[in-house]
């Protein structure tokens, strides 16, 4: 079985209100120079068929209309 990690995040240009909320909270903690915060999710999995990972991402793990994904094999 191959191990893989898939990183999914909102596409560039789509408002990410979670990222914005984190960005706005940071100055109160003294982090004044942080911008472009984007929040996504990570899916870790094991598969016997790593060739089909992209298809799996397109069909279920990500919604390609609104999300980008990156596959990292471990």
């Amino acid at each position, binding site marked *: 079985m191959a191990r893989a990690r898939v990183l999914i995040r909102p596409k560039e240009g*789509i*408002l990410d209100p*979670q990222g914005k909320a984190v960005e706005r909270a940071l100055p109160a903690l003294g982090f004044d120079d942080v911008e472009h915060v984007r929040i996504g999710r990570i899916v870790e999995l094991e598969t016997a068929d790593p060739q089909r990972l992209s298809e799996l991402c397109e069909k*279920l793990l990500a*919604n390609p*209309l*609104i999300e980008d994904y990156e596959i990292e094999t471990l």
Partner: protein
Amino acid sequence: MIWGVIQFPGSCDERDALHACSLTGEARLIWHEERSLDGIDAVVVPGGFSYGDYLRAGAIARFSPAIESVAEFAARGGPVLGICNGFQVLCESRLLPGALLLNQNLRFVCRQVELLDGDERLSIPVKHGEGRYWAPGEVLDEIEAAGQVAYRYAPGDNPNGSARDIAGVANEAGNVLGLMPHPEHAVDPLTGSTDGLKVFERVAGALV
């Protein structure tokens, strides 16, 4: 006419949907594992949190046996109404254009809104955390030009940051309709408005 209301694990509005449907015809519940839509004239995909809304709202429900049958039913021209989570399911299924994202202010919103159906105003409640309609700009242009924007929030009453105040959209053929507001909760004067009936009548009208 006979309505079929799909019920998933995690649905929560199927009973109100059944009641609303029963005011314009006969209504039956269809469990998500059923494939048969025999005898059904129109389908409602109701609100709630199908399969816990895991991964993305509607993402898992899309692969349920009942929704696969609904997709075939829709392809044959059968009328389908998706409400709230049902709208999310229909977008995830690509039966409707666009997607529903987290509300812009990150808050769950639960209140009455004013909807515009052309010049007509409808008073119908919303209750959702992920109702911000989004599609690429060129898709928004296309669906506006094709008359697929079925409902808009009245100016100043957009509760979630939806693009161009869009509250509900139809497919190109016009037989599949999805909206975030809950017409099934607005069918009795006791709850303040009966405007929701007009949405069910619109879908029923797609039959004729």
